[in-house]
């Protein structure tokens, strides 16, 4: 039995597990469970007051984008992935991921409700700001296709639609767009601003890293199981989608940084976007497109290393729950 199918009748019994990677990701995702209210934002409010208008704008831009798009990912999963997966272990993971997206949305709600920012503006930005609306429309197009009656997952074209949606939400939205936003979000903490917001972002990034692991495993599995997808034209189409996404992100980042803030400007962030895009391309088996260096070397400290938390001063975000799950009982 292949991983794709109409998951409605089959897949009510977990064992035997066919795709162990999905099971492993599920276990880790459960261990990663966290809640936004574990982090107190009080100290960040004082930082927020000190920030420049350009910095506040960038932050607002970021949150305004993340907030609705966490839910957009859920739609992509609910309409475009879950119904076409045959493996119950895949369903388990997707269910956990969907809860995580909900939790991320509530995290941004928590931030929006705590910081003294214009909430109406934040909520309407994804419609009012053209560069944000364009990204959203791009995603929605693929999701819509997945809901149409004419989609037949057993055909090559149906499988290609599945892959298109997967590339759109997982590689592009989560793997490139979100990741460039994470870099911007963490940059504040490197300047000793919004440290607690940074802790929330640590958790979100930890979750998203698993989402990407799941996505790439799913893509590789589908490609491996369906030789009919290995055609050059389709591959070029996918590559084109990703490169188009870079253009959209560049426009979005120019709106985020009309001028620049300490340590960051639109060109800098867009170079990072290109750096990330090359990584995603290579993971998919493509040649890199841009060959640029990572301008944000400081991400080594912000994200890449094990962190030793002064737990009196900062919430330790490295913990995992369910110790007993590791026990053989």
């Amino acid at each position, binding site marked *: 039995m292949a991983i794709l199918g109409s998951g409605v009748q089959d897949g009510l019994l977990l064992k035997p597990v066919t795709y162990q990677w999905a099971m492993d990701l599920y276990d880790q995702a459960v261990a990663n469970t966290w809640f936004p209210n574990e982090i107190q934002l009080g100290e960040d409010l004082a930082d927020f007051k000190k920030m420049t208008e350009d910095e506040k704008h960038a932050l607002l831009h970021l949150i305004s984008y993340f907030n609705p798009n966490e839910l957009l990912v859920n739609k992509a999963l609910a309409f475009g992935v879950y119904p076409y997966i045959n493996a119950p272990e895949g369903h388990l993971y997707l269910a956990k991921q969907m809860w995580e997206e909900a939790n991320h949305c509530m995290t941004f709600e928590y931030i929006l409700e705590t910081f003294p920012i214009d909430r109406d503006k934040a909520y309407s930005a994804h419609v009012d700001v053209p560069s944000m609306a364009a990204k959203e429309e791009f995603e929605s197009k693929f999701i819509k296709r997945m809901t149409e009656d004419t989609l037949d997952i057993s055909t090559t074209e149906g499988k290609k639609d599945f892959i298109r949606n997967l590339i759109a939400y997982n590689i592009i939205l989560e793997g490139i767009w979100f990741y460039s936003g994470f870099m911007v979000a963490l940059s504040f903490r490197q300047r000793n601003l919004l440290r607690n917001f940074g802790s929330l972002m640590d958790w979100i990034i930890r979750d998203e890293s698993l989402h990407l692991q799941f996505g790439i495993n799913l893509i590789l599995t589908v490609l491996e199981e369906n030789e009919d997808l290995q055609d050059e034209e389709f591959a070029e189409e996918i590559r084109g989608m990703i490169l188009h996404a870079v253009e959209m992100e560049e426009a979005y980042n120019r709106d985020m940084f009309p*001028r*620049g*803030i300490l*340590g*960051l400007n639109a060109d800098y962030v867009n170079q990072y976007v290109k750096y990330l895009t090359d990584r995603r391309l290579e993971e*998919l*088996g493509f040649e890199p497109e841009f060959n640029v260096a990572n301008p*944000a070397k*400081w991400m080594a400290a912000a994200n890449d290393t094990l962190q030793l938390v*002064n737990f009196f001063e900062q919430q330790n975000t490295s913990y995992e729950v369910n110790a007993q799950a590791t026990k053989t009982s």
Partner: protein
Amino acid sequence: MTITENNAAAQAATTTGAVPVVAGGIHVTKRDGTREPYDADRINKAIERAAAGLPDQIAITTQVASELAITLFDGITTEQLDEAAIGVAVQNVKDDPQFDMVAARLLRKVIYKRVLGGYDTELELALLHQARFPGYIRDAIEEGLLDVRLQELFDLDALAAALDHTRDDLLKYIGTVTMRNRYMITDRHRKSLEVPQYFWMRVAMGLALNEADPTGTALKFYEKISTLDYLPAGSTLVNAGTSYPQLSNCFVMQMEDDIEHIAKSVRDVMWLTKGTGGIGLSVTKLRSEGSPIRSNNTTSTGPIPFMHTIDSTLRAVSRGGKKFGALAFYMENWHLDFHQFLDLRQNSGDPYRRTRTANTAVWISDEFMKRVAADQDWYLFDPAETPDLVELVGSEFSARYAEYVALAEAGKMRTFRKMRAREQYKQILVTLQTTSHPWLTWKDTINNRALNTNTGTIHLSNLCTEICLPQDRDNISVCNLASVNLPQHLVDGKIDWDRMEQSVRLAVRQLDNLVDITLSSVPESEFANQENRAVGLGVMGFTDITERLGLAYESEEAYDLIDQIVEFVSYHAIDASADLARERGSYNNFAGSGWSQGKVPFDTIAEVEADRGVPVTVNRVTRLDWDTLRDKVKGGIRNATLMAVAPTASIGLVAGTTPGFDPQFSQIFSRNTSSGKFLEVNTNLVKDLQALGIWDEVKDQLLAAQGDLSKVDGVPQHLVDVYKTSFQLDPHAFLEVAARAQKWIDQAISRNIYLEDRDVDKMMELYAFAWEKGVKTTYYLHMKPRHTAEQSTVRVNKTENINRTGSASGRAAGGAASGGARKGFGGARKGFGGAKAAAAPAADAPVAEAQAEEAPSTTAAAAPASASRGFGGFGGAKKPAPATTEIPAVTDGEAVATTPEEKAPAAAPASVLSSIAAQAFATAPQEQPEVPPVTLPEPAPEPAAQQLSTSAAAPSSAALLDVVETVASGDTEMIGGVACPVDPMERLQCESCQ
């Protein structure tokens, strides 16, 4: 080539792709609001100056300048420009620690300019330091910030003449930031008033106020602390010399079971928090939930809601306007509500029954450990029914506990619960693994080893688990801390014992001064401080020196080294205090203390052993002439306690060394502190790798492996052994180090534990081992995360990782043969459908080429794979260790009698616990040859010779230990020439002890 040309060249070089070359359109907004064109030359000169004296000055300057250029934008302010330049320097530390010096100097230049004004040369800077000093003191006094006595008692010109700003180069970037954000004073508008040397001098003065020669003493203190030989603890650094000298670090209190006292405790917590102290608070006495309240014929809500109330209080009162309060709750594990206590730090559940800010620790008896070993039942009681238990320790506790158990079984207790002791023990450790709380502390080892319990029982330790002082309704015990910085005493590969002795003696004097100078807003703490004069001198930088000496943390040589160092520090601290008693008198509660009976800390190991009937498995080697000291302390000592090893998490940053006895967290890692997130690269390792000429080759691999040197290719084995990270070390090593040091320490040690293995059975064994070893307390448990976020700055290719490890592909077993490497669209790229993934790799030219190209870096990529082994590692992590058996699932209370475990006695966690029990009960203590007898000896005729012979058993580290036998004859007055120290510990959350 000029710097600017260099800069342009570098820019051109790095402008692959999209990097915008900064063009002429950029303007800088000056402080007065005017704009001027960006002057690259000026910035470059500043960077160049900050790199002065470094081997790669020009290259460093070029790199910082070019990376700064891409972050610029039109309208950037001069302040932002300064900050951006520092940020760029800092982000290069991962490749070369020299950049840390550049960043630190750039930051200090900003501080100098703000505090002292502009300068051009080093000489001008030196003169400014001196010229501005008296004015700084006077202005700050006028503003009400500093103590007026700083002007009245001191010769400010003489002090100014001693200021040496070149010592600032001892400070790393994170140390400078920490000092600025935490310790230096600012005016009402948050403008900095101090440069680093002013800060040290202000602290030195603030601790010499009670001296006959304040200026002379302050100079001695300044000399020691400004050279980082020892450091006072946080609260002292923050408040010394200020108009609010709350200098003590730790406060330890017990809540009584009445509403008045609960309310008073809330009040006291607020005041102590305001003064920056860290707090330990025992709640064991509070009656349990549902316990009757006679006055209004209702029932109690138990201790949990009160703990939540205090937890909120910590958030409400900020310390210094910046940090929230810090407190640890202690409870004994026989309390009926203990299972709710365990849940206090869970991240879900009723928020009113959680303490998100406060920490928790459990106060464990020998009785419990023995019942765990013997797999017996454990009973929980309402303290309202068993009010005497909290006052009893050791065998007396056991006897009384047995009586209550008998009453319970006879149906004569109003309420109780019963469970297997092992079941509760496991619950504690499962909670510890998931929430890092509660910390395990052993009350009987603490009480039976104390020399200061003549005034009552010790009911808890403190926030950081290194304090052991008694308390009651009239006494909130107080401790005052400082730490000797070990690496400063390592000269040319040898420990400079004379310098160490000077540091210790001066630190003790300064701590004793502190007792008289500090002010508290809580009368009970003021009282306890005056009556006991308790101080705690510790050490930091242990791992730093083992690395420099080429010793592995988990080696016998390292164990002997810490044993020897702490013996030396303890000896001289006690001796200094005994000398102070002759100068200033003994502390008021001296009569009846262990000291007054001629005991020293080492002597109480045997007492613990005798009382619990289980050996303390630590060696009993001694090296110094303790008998002389025994006689001396019998005649008087100035301080109820002398030693405690604090975490030094913050002052360790200022000192630029590894905190306390902690191992290297990793060889490259980040610190998340209230001052931000900082990358730390182990400079000892970098030096060693540079000496081998391989640092540049391996640095990316090291980062990809998140600092695990064993995953880096081509590193000699002896370096891999010396540079193990905290998670690679056998955790028993942490306990062996603590046990050796604990021999000499009258209080305790903040012993952090680091674990990678999540097997709860192994944790049960590990913590039982700690108790056996006579370790008094453990502190925070750091679990290695199994999964971390995708890395940004090193090459990552998840597909390659999946292919290489097979770990994320569950099909390995079934589908391996059919599979071949998966390569996404790679198959399509080069041909039509036919050239699919399964095609032979050799035929796949582009792919093969890519792989060949990556040959050097495939290994680099391998590292992240195993680092993020989260997934692949699962099987192993979850796999039952074959021999270990299960303790039945945790169930509640009385059901225990029927648990299946009874049916399978053979399955008892025998592998773990019974071996402990076997050791514990089988070995007769007297079989250990080195163990001194239970009662303390009359001084043997030739003790020195005897001791040396025992130490001869020690391994070959003798070379570096050679100075040890130069035992000081107790009463020397060695405080000559070299100034001395001050050394408190830190403030903070434990500012107290950090």
